[in-house]
């Protein structure tokens, strides 16, 4: 995902998330945070497009006891 994005596009997106969250990242800390964001996006990409509607998340409760194999 992030490989095809320009640094400016990634930075703008990151800044939008920070603004919405009310977080101000000081300029001297921004490069490290941005590098982490680019790396995180590569991992997030692995999670999307993988599941159909029948794949439920782990927080949908199962009422039976823990399976012991």
């Amino acid at each position, binding site marked *: 995902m992030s490989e095809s994005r320009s640094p400016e596009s990634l930075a703008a997106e990151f800044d939008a998330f920070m603004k919405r969250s009310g977080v101000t990242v000081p300029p001297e800390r921004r490069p490290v945070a941005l590098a982490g964001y680019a790396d995180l996006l590569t991992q997030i990409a692995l999670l999307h497009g*993988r*599941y159909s509607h029948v794949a439920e998340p782990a927080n949908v409760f199962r009422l039976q006891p823990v399976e012991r194999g």
Partner: protein
Amino acid sequence: MDTQDLSIAEMGAALRAGRVTAESLTHAALGRIEARDPGLQAFLLVTRDRALADARAADAERAAGRDRGPFHGIPYALKDIYDTAGIRTTCHSRLRLDNIPAEDSVVAAKLHAAGGVLLGKLATHEFALGGPSFDLPFPPARNPWNPEHVTGGSSSGSATAIAARMVRMAMGSDTGGSIRGPAAWCGLVGIKPTYGRVSRRGVFPLSWTLDHCGPLSRSVEDSAITLQVLAGYDPLDGACADVPVPDYRADLERGVQGLRIGVPRAFFATASATTPDVLGCIDRTIAQLRAAGAVVEDVTLPDYALFAAAGRVIMMAEAFAIHEADMQTRLTDFGELTASRFVLGAAITASDYINALRARREATDAVNDVLSRHDALLTASGLGTAPRFDATVDNRAAASPMQTIPFNVTGHPAMSVPVTLASNGLPIGVQVVGRPFDEAMVFRVGRAIETLSGWERVALPSFPG
């Protein structure tokens, strides 16, 4: 006799036989801390008066005929995210320098009730994340095998204190590998019990659904004795499970004859960072287990990258929710590395988080399926040995050379066991994983590996004093 080299069971036997007292054990530990900690920086706070009071109380009780069990009179220490009533608990952070809890965490209360002797509070990476960092109120702990190398995190002080023989057992916490990683890199045993086995109440959270409490120690038996004290239902911890606790030492010496052990080889064999030392040590361990009568075979799990992605997204989203107010109002009070990781949680969408939870279900089902045909799994704890501090300063992407986070995502019990020294003289550990709430099998297989590997004959680092 150097009492610092006695196992917990041996200390208990010596106490019951009257060969030592809890007070003499405590003085020995305090002396060792005084001599070694200045260069290693494991302790944020040494609770000398509390330790001596605990020790004298244990001795008085024993003299009066009361025996609280195997932990009675045994010195220990706590990672500084465990609340301790009346004792500063900082999370190694500028944000909590003045925090003095009113109550003990459940773990601290259980160790106290078992007659343990609290030596102090230990270094961590800030809020059990980040690190190693030099912009925090306390320096990072250093690896006793070579102080120019990191311990791994975040239970850094716990690993340092044990490997330097200041204390035999110390509590850590494990959200992505923070018990098993430092254990592997410092030549120790570290167990992350099943999610729900040990109460997390009173432990500062990093990620509610990934956090686990567990001990680091010198041996599998030490860990089994400690978990016996800690395990059990806490109705006030919503995640704690009401599941019977077996005798963790009952099967320790049964060996692996007839057991089936699966090896998810692709986890470590396909990772570019895996060192030949690690590959060799896994293969040697497999050969030793086979020679001891186990059936060891490769198994297939989902890609490691899926586990890692799910774990990181869940961790960052939950951590940001925990720290959101402080991130909005006092971000620069966090260390730079910690803040650079926590802010990423603000950039995770609801869809990202929910897809991570779908991956968690897929991963958990896959591990349960493999464990329906195998008694345990064997894999690497880490891909290499502890790096030098100066090789970690640019570690901004949170990429981990550990192989531990899959079992935080799935909640299975997992333990790192030391097996050998690499060609650079630093320790390597392997990881044993079991079925939910079957820590007894993890201990049994781990104990076999501990014996077969010859690790018990490896000398720990030596120090003057």
